[in-house]
């Protein structure tokens, strides 16, 4: 910790948040909000005079509320930077008449009640996300009596009570009477591996070994202590872990296979009575304990959404961040130049976090050392011959990569290739078909539509899927071997925003019974908000179908994330059923109506061209 604070190459922004990220690999532009600290961190010598005079006392978060701190405080003695901070919510008022005691005593005058948030802009080539995790709050498990009984604590609270730097100076005492307990129990999997809707279904990975460690600490500090662990399965799979587990057993710690159904408090002794079915013996047991520790699980960061959206990261159904590939690219995010490390990806212990962080740093170094990188050639280009200067494309582009056209000056728009991310929304929205997407051209996609709707079109579901989410969701279904009907025929585009109206209409004209457009959930859109255009276009298409007397439900829309293999398979099953409801007559009717429409449009075009020719002649 100290090292990073001192490192000449590291610029530390504490009490700060990333407010905005724009740009692309190698060229990210980041805005950081340095929240007001009200204490000049460079000047502060951590002399503690200010805190001495501060009249406010609030529970100390770091000590899990076991002790109190002042409104001006240092989070913990080894904090980096080693400086005080003033919490304005706790302060009596930044009005010196109200208080102002701390500023009076600070000899270095580093306290400034009018301190303001500051925005800092930086440019970076790579981003590593290591936003961490939160711990599960076990209050929901009412039968364990957490918050109802003083002597039921969580594993995080345990850490502070056993710590020499903690509120009790390392004396492990129980809250009700400040006595050192002799009989201590631990309940595992609190909020983890849960099937009843409370907590989370996954294993939190660290709590088994954390409890083993806790029992060893207890045995070490208080020889003769009686510790009991109630568990479903003990998971001690890491290097050296089994040794620790065995040592704990040798020290006399009792491991009871079974999760208590009920905890009651003896009002007199404040001891806790547990009822548990020992699943090894099948017998109902009762245990009396003086103190109970709930081994709380790990949960995704509750405030992680804003960063996730800024970096267009996807999350799994658990809420942890999705990696680019679970085996082959475990620390890369799908977006180039962004990497992930630590518990933001999944619950893990210190060693695994460090390992993953080093891996992410090494992967990032590849780009930094190279000093340059290639951008996939999938950007857009304007055909100036076809453009009629309407200006729609410039409005559509989520990246502002298109400069406005000028109708009067007949100036077509220009596209800044470096800013274009290649979503293709502009190409799909351009009424003139004047935008060419490199590698995802209209002809290329139309050729796929024709090829897929050629044989037995009446049996197949034509699916458009976006590269990042729904296509990856299909991959996910495959990896999980989820079975679904064979009717789907899929075309991949980078973004659902690329799916032009004419692709869909052409499929129907060729005899497709149903078309599915699928893409990312709005929050996951890899092109900021290109997915909005998909939604608007779908409304337009449904209206069009309706007007032509074509059943609107033959065109479906689904948002499927990269982690939603289940949903992908489910959608395929449901739509297969719907395909069966489309009759041959319906398909014939559609083909006829659309062929007529096309003929009409052609005629109109010709007339216009003719009129144009006459005018110019």
């Amino acid at each position, binding site marked *: 910790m100290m090292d990073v604070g001192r490192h000449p190459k590291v610029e530390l922004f504490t009490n700060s948040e990333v407010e905005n990220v724009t740009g692309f690999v190698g060229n990210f532009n980041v805005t950081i909000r340095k929240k007001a600290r009200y204490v000049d961190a460079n000047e502060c010598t951590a002399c503690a005079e200010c805190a001495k005079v501060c009249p406010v006392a609030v529970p100390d978060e770091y000590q899990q509320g076991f002790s109190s701190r002042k409104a001006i405080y240092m989070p913990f003695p080894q904090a980096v930077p080693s400086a005080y901070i003033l919490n304005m919510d706790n302060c009596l008022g930044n009005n010196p008449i109200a208080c102002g005691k701390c500023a009076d005593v600070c000899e270095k005058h580093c306290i400034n009640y009018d301190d303001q948030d500051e925005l800092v802009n930086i440019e970076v080539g790579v981003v*590593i996300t290591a936003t961490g995790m939160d711990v599960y709050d076990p209050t929901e498990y009412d039968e364990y009596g957490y918050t109802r009984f003083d002597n039921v604590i969580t594993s995080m609270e345990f850490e502070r009570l056993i710590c020499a730097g903690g509120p009790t100076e390392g004396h492990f005492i129980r809250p009700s009477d400040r006595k050192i307990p002799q009989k201590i129990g631990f309940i595992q999997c609190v909020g983890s591996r849960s099937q009843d809707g409370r907590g989370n279904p996954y294993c939190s990975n660290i709590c088994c070994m954390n409890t083993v460690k806790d029992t060893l600490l207890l045995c070490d500090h208080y020889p003769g202590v009686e510790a009991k662990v109630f568990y479903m399965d003990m998971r001690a799979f890491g290097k050296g872990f089994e040794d620790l587990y065995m040592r704990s057993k040798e020290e006399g710690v009792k491991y009871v296979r079974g999760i208590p159904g009920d905890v009651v408090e003896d009002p007199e002794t404040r001891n806790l009575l547990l009822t548990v079915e020992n699943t090894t013996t099948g017998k109902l047991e009762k245990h009396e304990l003086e103190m109970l520790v709930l081994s709380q699980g790990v949960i995704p960061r509750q405030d992680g959404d804003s960063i996730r959206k800024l970096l267009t990261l996807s999350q799994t159904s658990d809420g942890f961040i999705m990696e680019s590939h679970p085996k082959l690219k475990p620390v890369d995010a799908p977006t180039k130049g962004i990497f992930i490390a630590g518990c933001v990806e999944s619950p893990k212990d210190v060693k695994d976090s460090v390992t993953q*962080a080093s891996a992410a740093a090494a992967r990032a170094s590849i780009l930094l050392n190279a000093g340059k990188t290639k951008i996939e050639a999938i950007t857009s280009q304007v055909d100036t011959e076809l453009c009629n200067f309407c200006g729609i494309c410039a409005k559509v582009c989520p990246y502002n990569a298109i400069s406005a056209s000028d109708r009067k000056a007949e100036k077509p728009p220009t596209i800044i290739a*470096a800013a274009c991310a290649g979503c293709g929304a502009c190409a799909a929205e351009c009424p003139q078909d004047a935008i060419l997407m490199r590698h995802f051209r209209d002809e290329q996609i139309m050729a796929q539509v024709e090829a897929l709707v050629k044989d037995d079109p009446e049996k197949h579901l034509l699916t458009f899927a976006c590269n990042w989410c729904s296509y990856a969701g299909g991959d996910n*279904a495959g990896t999980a071997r989820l079975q679904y009907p064979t009717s789907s025929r899929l075309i991949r585009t980078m973004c659902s925003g690329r799916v032009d109206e004419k692709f869909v209409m052409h499929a129907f004209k060729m005899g497709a019974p149903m078309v599915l457009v699928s893409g990312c959930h709005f929050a996951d859109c890899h092109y900021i908000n290109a997915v909005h255009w998909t939604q608007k276009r779908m409304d337009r298409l449904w209206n069009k179908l309706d007007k032509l007397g074509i059943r609107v439900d033959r065109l479906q829309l689904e948002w499927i994330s990269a982690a939603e293999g289940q949903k992908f398979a489910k959608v395929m099953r449901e739509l297969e059923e719907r395909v069966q409801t489309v009759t041959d007559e319906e398909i014939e009717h559609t083909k006829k109506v659309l062929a007529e429409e096309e003929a009409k449009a052609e005629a109109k075009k010709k007339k216009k061209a003719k009129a144009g020719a006459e005018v110019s002649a």
Partner: protein
Amino acid sequence: MALELKKPEKLRIGVFVCECGLNIAGTIDCSAVSEYSKTLEDVVCVVQNKYTCADPGQNEIKKAIVEHKLNRVVVASCTPKIHEPTFRQCVADAGLNPYLFEMVNLREHCSWVHQTEKEKATEKAKDLVRSGVARARFLEPQIEAEVPVTKAALVIGGGVAGIQAALDLADGGHKVFLVEKEPTIGGIMAALDKTYPTMDCSI
């Protein structure tokens, strides 16, 4: 103008059908798919491989590009998310523009999800290859733009992972910006007394 890329002499498409061991061949009749591929427009060469992504498989592609003067390559194997870069590199090594390569997903999107419907899966596989070849006929060579990489990193989060990543990058000589929401770095780890497996202090 520059958009009008000239059409190549004559299209010569090579199709490479991958068995992926039994991952694909266990469900899909790969020989039938290969035979079918031969009937597709502009396809001049079809090769079936046990593992197209392995060295021997890649060598087959390179060899065929030279021997059959291929100017389009279609590989029908797994998801492009894993091996598209592999095969793009492979065709580039043989002198073909990487954007003249097209991938068809017979594994994640077909064999793995239709394991009990072998016939229908084979029909679907043929359709998918047909679509890939149809698209390949319209592919054009592309030149990738190169962009500079700013030699600085942003690390978000000052817990144990963020600290380690920042230190590694900084020790490697790179400028690092470490952003932490809380007034101090340290994260959850700083609140732990001792940590396993070494049972030593966390800070």
